[in-house]
């Protein structure tokens, strides 16, 4: 310990101690000279050796390297600025992506003890749901000792201890207060009407309010008063109605495992009370809940995909800069030669070059962080994010940026440094490999963005297997209002009759899971060893006609039919290749259903996934409270919602059905989303190709300036312009060609994961590949020819004279 402090002292008082050491040695010499002994050692070197005992020599050398680097970089500001910008883009894109991930999944919510917040969900080896019955949530709340708090949330967290008999109250969000009530300061105590029921506003959430699971509702109501606002609701006392979300806080000192153990015993107790409503082997799945987003496995996949794309940009930037460094090394040949001649070892030169790379990378990372901050700030404002989210880099982001800088420095600096230290900078092979790498990486990015652009076009101009433009969905949410299957059936058939009577309505049908609805069901199975996602649905016979989904084989259901199933074309092809699917049995054990028909592929519940397959069952009486009406208009559907609303009003005034036009829904949910994704990825791709183009531009113009004399002599001897151009550009031909082929190959292999979001465009879509490659070739040709043209405009006499 003492030694460490002494070392620090020696560092701090270096100058004085060095002078004292010098004095010691001078005195030594004086004395030795008196006695007639002359010592001809190198004093400077001896002093350096003595100083080494202090253990700070590495710092001195680092200081020397840094000073030298600063001088070198300052002397060529053009290169420095280019290099820092290229790196800032490469690192900045990654930092921005990571900051976003950090904000969503890593940063704790700004609440007390966010780490103890947990999201609790029902899961069993076969089943999963994000919601659970209110009664179960209450049971867990009352009995679990490992949780210090349990919140049951129907859409949103509760505001305070609530009771069904208390006067109805509401808390509104800051945004609603500002926009709807113009920030009225006397809002508290005012009565508003929700579902025509009066409620008193008792509070406003703060502007930077952090809510659980990233939900941002405008109105918060006590959960116990849900039946008051939704007349006839039995959500709170039906043990089979899974519709509340459960959150909890782990009690102090309790781990996730301990809580899971206790909850499992409670689940088993619940099974005793409600044997029907608890699954086999059910357990409560505990996820950390103290972040903006509770991450699921699939979200990590998306994150990994984005990380891959942004890392490709960094790869382009690094390869680019590596090329620039190598090119610069040729002009630095003299300088490095001199340094070697005066005694610098290879290692010393290598270290100096690495220092240069690290300095460049650090500058790039700093600029990149600034860039990322600006972009995220703009994005957060544009996308109306929660007020407490801040794009200011925290320690995780700073650490990440530092890591990125080091990785970048290794990638762009290491190989050139090795090359230069061995004084082999004139070899072109490394430069060619770097060009190939850049081209390959830009190629992948361009192909991916081109695929996504195609997907956008596809979404805009084709149907997802059903004609949605004239559809209107009406979701009366009968289950929520306490309808029994029988009363629901009666209501729905009356509703259907009255709607059919309208001349504007062409046909009406019932479906349990409508397109773009609030819930989706998915069964993941394997057919012939390949994973298949089957989207099940429960429909009424007229569904296929209303949706304009063709029945390709067999027939639709008869009314009241049971134990039969209609499968989509793709499912039939996968399950029974080359056989007639009609009459086959589907399912396992005693619950097998007979296939009676094959319908056209229609991505009702998975619009973006071309690999999805569908399976339809006839809706049974028990399904009636969950059914949704689908209308097909004869003409323009925009007039239908008000009519449907008044019909529903007359039938049961308690209900507030959700009436939605598919056309508008589709535009808002699907088109905008896919357009945004395509725009973002295209921008990333464009940045990559521009960076690569700048790199090629620089390399070609460099190689032209290196070969000025040769070119001038050739031209003086009568070489044709074309020959001169070929001579200059030939060395780039192979790397570009190989890079493009490799890039296309990688894109073809990697884009398989994209299939789910390509809306039916094949991941090997030739048009997309061709478009991407044409753009790439055009940009590269431009980047190559622009500087090469300089070779043709040489002033021969002057050039030759100069040399």
């Amino acid at each position, binding site marked *: 310990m003492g030694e460490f402090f002494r070392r620090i002292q020696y560092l701090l008082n270096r100058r004085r101690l060095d002078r004292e050491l010098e004095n010691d040695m001078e005195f030594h010499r004086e004395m*030795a000279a008196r006695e007639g002994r002359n010592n001809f050692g190198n004093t400077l070197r*001896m002093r350096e050796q003595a100083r080494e005992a*202090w253990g700070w020599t590495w710092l001195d050398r680092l200081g020397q390297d840094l000073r030298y680097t600063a001088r070198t970089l300052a002397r060529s500001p053009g290169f420095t600025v280019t290099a820092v910008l290229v790196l800032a883009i490469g690192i900045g894109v990654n930092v921005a992506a990571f900051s976003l991930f950090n904000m969503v999944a890593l940063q704790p919510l700004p609440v007390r003890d966010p780490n103890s917040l947990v999201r609790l969900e029902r899961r069993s080896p076969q089943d999963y749901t994000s919601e659970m019955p209110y009664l179960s949530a209450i049971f867990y709340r009352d009995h679990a000792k490992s949780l210090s708090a349990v919140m049951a949330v129907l859409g949103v967290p509760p505001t305070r201890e609530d009771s069904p008999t208390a006067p109805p109250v509401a808390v509104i969000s800051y945004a609603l207060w500002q926009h709807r009530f113009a920030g009225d300061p006397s809002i508290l105590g005012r009565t508003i009407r929700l579902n025509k029921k009066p409620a008193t506003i008792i509070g406003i959430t703060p502007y930077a309010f952090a809510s659980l699971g990233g939900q941002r509702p405008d109105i918060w109501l006590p959960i116990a008063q849900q039946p008051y606002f939704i007349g006839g609701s039995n959500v709170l006392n039906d043990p089979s109605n899974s519709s509340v979300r459960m959150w909890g806080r782990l009690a102090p000192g309790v781990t996730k495992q301990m809580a899971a153990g206790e909850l499992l015993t409670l689940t088993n107790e619940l099974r005793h009370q409600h044997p029907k409503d608890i699954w086999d082997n059910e357990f409560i799945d505990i996820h950390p809940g103290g972040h903006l987003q509770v991450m699921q496995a699939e979200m990590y996949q998306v994150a990994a995909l984005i990380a891959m794309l942004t890392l490709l940009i960094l790869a382009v930037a690094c390869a680019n800069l590596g090329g620039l460094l190598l090119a610069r090394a040729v002009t630095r040949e003299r300088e490095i030669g001199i340094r070697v001649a005066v005694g610098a070892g290879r290692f010393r030169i290598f270290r100096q070059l690495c220092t240069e790379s690290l300095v460049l990378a650090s500058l790039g990372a700093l600029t990149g962080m600034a860039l990322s901050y600006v972009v995220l700030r703009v994005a957060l404002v544009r996308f109306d994010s929660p007020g407490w989210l801040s794009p200011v880099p925290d320690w995780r982001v700073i650490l990440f940026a530092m890591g990125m800088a080091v990785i970048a420095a290794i990638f762009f600096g290491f190989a050139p440094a090795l090359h230069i230290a061995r004084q082999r900078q004139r070899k072109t092979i490394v430069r060619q490999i770097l060009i190939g790498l850049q081209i390959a990486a830009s190629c992948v990015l361009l192909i991916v963005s081109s695929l996504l652009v195609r997907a956008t076009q596809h979404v805009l101009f084709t149907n997802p297997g059903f004609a949605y433009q004239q559809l209107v969905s009406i979701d009366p949410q009968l289950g929520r209002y306490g309808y029994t299957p029988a009363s629901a059936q009666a209501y729905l058939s009356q509703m259907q009759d009255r709607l059919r009577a309208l001349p504007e309505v062409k046909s009406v049908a019932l479906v349990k899971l409508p397109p773009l609805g609030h819930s989706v069901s998915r069964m993941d199975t394997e057919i012939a060893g390949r994973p298949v996602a089957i989207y099940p649905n429960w429909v009424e016979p007229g569904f296929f006609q209303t949706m304009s989904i063709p029945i390709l084989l067999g027939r639709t259901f008869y009314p009241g039919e049971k134990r039969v199933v209609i499968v989509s074309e793709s499912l039939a092809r996968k399950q029974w290749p080359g056989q007639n699917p009609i009459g086959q049995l589907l399912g396992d054990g005693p619950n097998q259903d007979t296939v009676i028909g094959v319908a056209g592929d229609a991505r009702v519940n998975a619009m973006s996934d071309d690999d999805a397959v569908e399976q339809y069952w006839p809706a049974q009486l028990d399904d009636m409270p969950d059914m949704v009406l689908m209308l097909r208009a004869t003409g323009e559907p925009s007039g239908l919602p008000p009519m449907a609303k008044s019909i529903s009003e007359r039938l049961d005034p308690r209900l507030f059905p959700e009436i939605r036009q598919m056309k508008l829904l589709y535009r808002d949910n699907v088109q905008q989303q896919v357009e945004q994704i395509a725009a973002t990825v295209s921008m990333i791709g464009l940045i990559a190709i521009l960076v690569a183009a700048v790199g090629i531009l620089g390399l070609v113009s460099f190689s032209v300036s290196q070969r000025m004399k040769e070119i001038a002599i050739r031209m003086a001897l009568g070489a044709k312009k074309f020959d001169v151009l070929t001579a200059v550009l030939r060395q780039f031909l192979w790397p570009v060609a190989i890079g493009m082929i490799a890039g296309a190959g990688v894109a073809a292999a990697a884009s398989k994961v994209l299939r789910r979001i390509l809306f039916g465009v094949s991941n090997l879509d030739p048009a997309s590949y061709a478009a991407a490659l044409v753009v790439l070739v055009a940009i590269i040709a431009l980047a190559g020819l622009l500087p090469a043209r300089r070779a043709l405009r040489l002033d021969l006499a002057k050039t030759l004279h100069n040399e």
Partner: protein
Amino acid sequence: MLITHTINTPKPVTPSGALVLLILRVLQSSSLHGYAIAQRIHILSNEVLAVEEGLLYPTLQKMLVKGWVTAEWGISETNRKVRCYCITPDGRRHLETELSDYDRVTQGIQEVLRTA
């Protein structure tokens, strides 16, 4: 270099380790400046050992950092301001352990030379 042609330095005691030992030993009685340390060792070894400044000063710096000696300003016999080195309690402890180690090793070697 320390000329050590008369001392057959046993393995565990490195040349510079031996120099540390010698320096600590001559500082045990009084504090001395660098040149005096070299002189003292030279004289005490019957002019067999010559300590050169190229090794003396790095070793002294190391000992300063280790905390075995400290340096104070003093006046030389030629009336010049110079740093004098004196041994610290830590240095004394180090000297003791090193000496006993050294004794053990030389004894061991002698034993082998005598009996083998």
